[in-house]
């Protein structure tokens, strides 16, 4: 029995009569990079939103590290070790790059309102720790110089990296990347590909939603294909590339 970090079982969700996901099931092996692909409107982002707790499915269950997490709130999932990035960047424009990453450490730290208000002992120490760890993460992502800058002033590509850095700061066991290279050029895409590999080599499982087929085929260990809210294929890249249903979904069938 493979070690599975995530199990999606027969998840269905509709929005006002439109079925976004219908009986979708797939598993994510631990410590691997899994890609979720499909044509536009296939339900990939909906699936990510269900897994990350933003939507509650009407049917089906989600298991994370063997525990049922269906419908759990995002902050709860973050504490359990599940985090994500966003298709339309959601970095904190009102903070610096460093502060963005420091927020990533929120789920791993404790000092609450009362201690912070009264600056009780331990607050200063925790803050020092948070800052230290944040710098470390910035180093990993090669963003140390940009630390003190306003996050809003960075380039699109750098902002995407900040989001990844921030998510990684929460020390996740599973990270969901929602179109991490959308809008990036070839060089930037290669850099992100390397980053993802490095993240995975640190023991973090990755679920990747992407349109860039080169990237997907190159770095994924396995691929899940959605179309019209249904899973149509699941397997290693070589198999998916030859799967007739997948080809039909992307290229259309011959008339």
């Amino acid at each position, binding site marked *: 029995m493979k070690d599975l970090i995530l199990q999606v079982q027969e998840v269905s969700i509709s929005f006002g009569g439109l079925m976004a996901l219908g009986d979708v099931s797939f598993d994510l092996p631990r410590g691997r990079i899994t890609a979720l692909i499909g044509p536009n409107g296939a339900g990939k982002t909906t699936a990510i939103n269900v897994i*990350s707790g*933003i939507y509650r499915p009407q049917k089906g269950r989600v298991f994370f590290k063997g525990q049922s997490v269906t419908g759990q*709130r*995002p*902050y709860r*999932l*973050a*504490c359990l070790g599940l*985090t*994500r990035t*966003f298709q339309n960047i*959601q*970095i*904190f*424009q*009102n*903070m*610096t790059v*460093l*502060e963005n990453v*420091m*927020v*990533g450490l*929120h*789920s*791993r*730290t404790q*000092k*609450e*309102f009362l201690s*912070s*208000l*009264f*600056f009780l002992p331990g*607050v200063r120490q*925790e*803050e*020092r720790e*948070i*800052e230290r760890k944040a710098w470390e993460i910035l180093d990993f992502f090669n963003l140390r110089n940009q630390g*003190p800058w*306003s996050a*809003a*002033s960075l380039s699109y590509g750098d902002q995407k990296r900040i*989001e990844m850095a*921030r*998510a990684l*700061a*929460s020390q996740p066991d599973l990270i969901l990347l929602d179109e991490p290279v959308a809008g990036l050029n070839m060089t930037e895409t290669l850099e992100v590909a390397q980053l993802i590999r490095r993240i995975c080599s640190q023991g973090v499982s990755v679920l990747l939603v992407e349109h860039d087929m080169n990237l997907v085929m190159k770095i994924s260990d396995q691929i899940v294909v959605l179309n019209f809210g249904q899973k149509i294929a699941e397997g290693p890249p070589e198999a998916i590339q030859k799967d007739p249903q997948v080809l039909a979904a992307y290229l259309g069938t011959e008339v």
Partner: protein
Amino acid sequence: MTWGGIKNKSYLGLLFLGLIILLFPLAINNPYYLNVVNIIGLNTLIVVGLNLLIGYAGQISLGHAAFYGLGAYLSGILTVSYHFSPWTAMGLALLVTGLLALLIGIPTLKLHGHYLVMATLGFNIIVNIVMIQWDQVTGGPSGFPGIPNLKIGTLVFDSDQKMYYLIWFFTFVGIALALNLVQSRVGRALRALHGSEVAAASLGVKTEAYKVKVFVLSALYASLAGSLYAHYLTFISPKTFDIFFSIELVTMVIVGGMGSIWGTLFGTFFITPLPVMLHFFDEYKDIFYGLILVFILIFLPEGVVVALRNRYRGRKRNLSSADLQGEL
């Protein structure tokens, strides 16, 4: 700008503020001016708390005059009608106001944008009407007189000068605590909540709980100010705690600059004396007030202090940051 750096600057600022507070009455002894400065102090206390809610957490409340009034009326009623000692009454007022803020806050802070605005407005109106109509308890529209002064041992706080020290002591502490909060993990989480609620949640920030907690905290600040107000003026009336005062409070936050604690001082110093200074123009007071508000909002929506700070620093802090995006 590391965390350590910010902290030191703030301590310096606090020290400076403390000195000014201590020395001010030596320069200005006129009870009339002291009275104005005292009201400024009370307003600052409220607005510091309100700014945590609006500027940092990115929420909005057009109902904080209600919490101010609750503090004042609870203190007044408990001391006059039920003979509690003023300090005990103040503590009880804090407790009751806090609980009410919690009860109201939980459903209210689930709302966003104009729904949130109107819910807080509606709450203020309801509380204000109760103040006016429940006259057996509150004295009705003609107000509630005879509230005793605060005292510590034999020292009775019955003059503008003595209340000056008491009021500004509390305000100073309030600012210090707020600075602590803002520069902590919690403060960062609040700003994150403001920046992107969904991203903050995905990183482990309990967004709903935090919103309610900061709402309750800001209500407590207002309640404390209300109690001090009651024991200072010894007479309170519902007119002080209506929605127009709530609007004034938010104006102070906006003018000072949302998300800047020092900015709130500017905001309260600027707005509070306006009706007094414009007393000659009592007729035209509202016109001036409205014009100022509109001008600042049209041309300096990030607030005066923040705008100046940005210009001075030269660093491009994006204007359409989540401070202003209708992400409320």
